[in-house]
Structures are given as C-alpha cells and as structure tokens.
C-alpha cells in the first residue's frame, strides 16, 4: 500500500491520492460512525429512531469533512482526527484476535523503523521527493498543534497540500516538527507519517509559518490572529494519524483485558515513549518514526503489568494496604 502511494506521488497523481483520501474519510466519518453510534446505543439500551440518527450522523460527518479537509477551528479538527483514529483502532481491536494484534503492533513498529531510517526506505524517499519539489504538507491527515496557521498560510498551493494518504491497514507513522522558518529543509526535523505517502514537509510548512504575517495577509487566514501564528512558528509538532491509530490499538487491547492498572501503565508507557521520541527529534532534527519506542514500551509494560504488577496491587488493594 505504501509502495502504491509512493508511486502515485512520484507520478504526480495528486488527484488520485486526494480522491482516495476523501473517500476513506467519508467512509469513516459516516459509515463507521453510524455503526459505532448504533452499537453504543444498543449497549446503553437507548431507543433512537432512524430519522434523527440520519440527521445527526449527516451533520457530524459533514462537519468532520469540512474541519479535516478544509478550514475550521483547530480544536475541532484535532478532535475529529482523534475520533477517526480511535474509530479505526476500534475496528482493529474488534475484529482481530488478541495475539494477532500484538504481533501486528511489533511488526508495524519494525517496519516503521526500517521504512523511515533506511536510505532506500519508502517513506524516506517520499520525504526527499517532497523536499525536492518544495511541496507543503497538508493538514488533513496529520495531527498538528499549529496546523491551522500553516495550512491556511500556504494558499498558493492548494492542490499539493492534499497528498497524504489515509491508512487502510498497515501504516507507518512518524512525528513531524515544524522547524524554524528559514532553515526549512535542513533544520526541520520531520517524522513521516504512514498511511503511505506523506509528503512530510514540516520544513516548508514551517517556512510558511515564518512568512506568517505576509502569507496571512495574502492568504485566507483572516480568522487567525497573526501574532499567534508568529509566536507558534517554531513550536509546532506534527504527528501522523497512523501513530494515533496504533497507540489507540495498544491501549484499547490493554483495556479489553479488563484491568485498569494495565490500561494506565500502557497509557503512561506510550506517553513516555512519545516524549522520548520528541526528545530525539529535538536532538536529531530529521525524520523519525514515532512508533517503535512507544510501542516497545507499551508492549513491555502491558505484559509486565498484567503478569506481575496487577496481582501485587490487587493483593494490596483488597486489604486496603497503601504503599
């Protein structure tokens, strides 16, 4: 899938990729959400008629499409991105047997490591191609802390913005950091995001950030406060949605074991893995895979906690002994 995307990207079939992107997000925002809400309602034993459901899902999905692919409040976009990642993760957790999930996680993080760091790795080639073409990232499938400012600022290249690919299964994901404006390609540390072709252009986006005041004037960013864009120019961090999906799969699988101690420890292990990756990003200043460290920590902590820590803590809590 990744190779297909890279081929498409190299052949400049942007419309194909964009169409693919739209179709997958429509699928998730409308149909998967419908199924999800249906299951939720039946679990809570609530009665709900089809007409209201149709209206609600229609509105929900449409606002999601607009927020993700076009303009919208940053918080709304982030929430929708998180929602669709969680939904994708739910699909995996529900339909895969337990051991398959764990093996999948481990294999995906190894793949991620290989794809991003090896010189001939597909994702690395993608980054370099995107850098050569001086194209910008697009906001729809990257979770970014300052996306709105950057995406709206790049008004001159609306087509090239939508080149990311939604993941359909195996995705490798990476972190991305928008560097300071002048040193785009060199200084910008990028972490690619899987789902295939990610033109991880943190640098270029960072550049647009730097031109914030100018581009904002030229572009359509009338809503955003320019001071804020200027302030945040070198602090944005981009994380691919594939990362979210796999983190969610890990925590979801941990929580389906029923023990909250395990869930908590996996959650914190992933957070620490992410912090470590960000640290490496700040030091290394290049594209980095976001999955390996977090997933390794998560998997190790899952097994250690469920086998060793949980019995200990349960023994203590049952007798109300506090440590």
């Amino acid at each position: 899938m990744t190779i297909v995307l890279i081929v498409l990207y190299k052949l400049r079939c942007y419309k194909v990729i964009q169409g693919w992107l739209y179709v997958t997000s429509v699928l998730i925002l409308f149909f998967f959400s419908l199924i999800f809400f249906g299951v939720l309602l039946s679990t809570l034993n609530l009665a709900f008629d089809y007409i209201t459901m149709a209206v609600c899902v229609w509105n929900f999905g449409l606002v999601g499409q607009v927020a993700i692919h076009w303009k919208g409040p940053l918080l709304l976009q982030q929430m929708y991105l998180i929602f669709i990642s969680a939904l994708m993760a739910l699909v995996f957790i529900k339909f895969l047997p337990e051991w398959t999930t764990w093996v999948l996680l481990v294999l995906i993080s190894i793949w991620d490591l290989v794809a991003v760091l090896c010189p001939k790795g597909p994702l690395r080639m993608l980054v370099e191609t995107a850098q050569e073409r001086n194209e910008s990232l697009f906001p729809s499938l990257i979770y970014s802390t300052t996306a709105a400012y950057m995406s709206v600022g790049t008004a001159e290249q609306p087509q090239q913005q939508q080149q990311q690919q939604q993941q359909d299964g195996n995705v490798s994901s990476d972190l991305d950091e928008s560097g300071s404006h002048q040193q785009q390609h060199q200084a910008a540390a990028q972490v690619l995001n899987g789902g295939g072709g990610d033109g991880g252009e943190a640098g270029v986006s960072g550049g647009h950030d730097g031109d914030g005041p100018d581009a904002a004037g030229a572009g359509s960013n009338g809503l955003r406060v320019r001071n804020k864009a200027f302030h945040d120019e070198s602090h944005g961090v981009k994380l691919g949605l594939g990362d979210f999906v796999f983190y969610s799969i890990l925590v979801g699988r941990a929580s389906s074991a029923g023990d909250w101690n395990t869930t908590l420890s996996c959650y914190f292990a992933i957070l620490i893995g992410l912090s470590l990756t960000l640290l490496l990003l700040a030091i290394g200043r290049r594209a980095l895979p976001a999955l390996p460290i977090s997933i390794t920590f998560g998997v190790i902590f899952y097994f250690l906690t469920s086998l060793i820590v949980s019995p200990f803590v349960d023994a203590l809590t049952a007798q109300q002994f506090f440590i």
Partner: protein
Amino acid sequence: MTLLEFFGCSLISFSPALIMFIFTVANNPLKIIILTCSAFFWLLSLLLSSIVWFAVVPLRKQLVFSMVVSILFQEAIRIAFYFFINGGGGSSGGGGGAAAASSAGGSEPLTDADQVTLTAGTGRPVKILHLHSLSYVCGLGFGFMAGAFSMVNLLADISGPGSVGLGGEHEGFLLVSSVLALMFVFLNICWTVVTFVCIEDRRLYFLAYVWGSHLLCSLLTLLNSSASPLLSLVPIMVSLTCALIGLLLSLHLVEANLAGFFTSLVSPAWMLRVCRR
C-alpha cells in the same frame, strides 16, 4: 446509586489533585511532560517492587515485606528522579527539561535569557523550571499515580451494579480507601518537595522525616482489616497529621511566607492584587 458512589469516591480521592493540575500545571506544557515523567517513574518503582514480590515466593502472603521493599524503592526512585531531572544536581542542569522545552515549546513564551541559552548551540542547558515548582509537579505526578493504582480498579467495580461493602467488607470500605488515596496524594507532594529541596541544599536530615513518615503512614494502613471500620481512623488521622507536618515543613524549606501562602489559598486573585499594593 452506584454511579453516584463512583463519582463521589473518585472526587474524594482525586479532586484536589485535579484542581491543582488544572490551576498550576495545565497551562504549561513543560510541566505536563514532567508530570507524566514522574508518574512513569513511580510506575517504574512499583514495577521493581512487584518483581521483588513475585520473585520472593515464600513471602508472597506476607505483604509487609513487599510493602517495605516498595517504600524503599519509591524513595530511591524519588531521589533518582531528582538527579535525572536536574542532570547531576547543582543549580544548572535540567538537560531533559531543556530539550523537552525546545521540542514541545508550545504556547509558553520563553524568557529572553532562556531563549538565548537554548539556541546558543550546545552549552550548558539552562534550568527552565525553578526547583520548587519542579518538585511540586513531580510530587503531583507521583501522588496521582500512587492514588490511581490503588483506586482505579475499585472505582471500576463500583460503577457496576451493587456496592456498599464490595464483597463482604464493612460498609466504610470505599470511603476509607478513597480518603487514604487522597492522603497519599498530598503526602507524596510534601515528600517530594522536601526530598528535592533537601538534596539541593544538602540538608539531608530532613530525609529522615520523609522516610519515617512514609513508613509510618504506610505500615499503619495494615490496620485496615475487614473487621472494624473504626480502626481505619488511625491511619487516616496519622496520615493527615503527617501531611500537615509535611506541608509546613516543605513551606519552611522553600522559605515561603506562611501567612501569605494560607491567605492566598482562600482569597480570590483580585483581593491579593489589592493587598499587594
């Protein structure tokens, strides 16, 4: 009824920590990262102590042994965390903090001095957070994790049908657990502040207070038998006293103005501003 109890117990245990988080930590991304880090370190100490519990098979039923071991590990990890965060002690350092700040900067505008030092190539990283707020945040992380691990399974069980004694215990079981979790959150904050400031100032005798009160409060919870709820008052009261002593001690060590501190706790911001003039 059960959901009510769930919210009640969870708020008893965690609402002070939550409020402290919202008002002091939430707007500062670096503090959030340090909070997560310290929670993780507590988790590490728990992991180490459970490995010891697991390994020493004959003593598995005697939880006293593993509790003492766990307390020792926790204190060791607290001290280790000080050195981890401060990069070898002293007034400079904070290597981890500095790098995290540069990558996760976010909305906090750094002061010019910090910015200059960070961007000045390699050089010694500058301490971004003052030691006092750093130790407070770490204590919050430790305490939150400690409380969470003791409460969270209980809370999950409460939200289902039927509670009160939860499997044959006395009716105050949940209340005792929640209140003790609350105490331990506070205690962890005080212990961490005292530990960090002690190591920094090299006045190591206050560590005796930390270790002593931790052992005391923890081993007193052994009195929480299933027979009588009244006996559980002992650990609760003792923990409360230790928490208050810890609070006063930590305030003394950071040289805070006691009167000012307590006034600021109860006064709204505008009143403080007026008084300052």
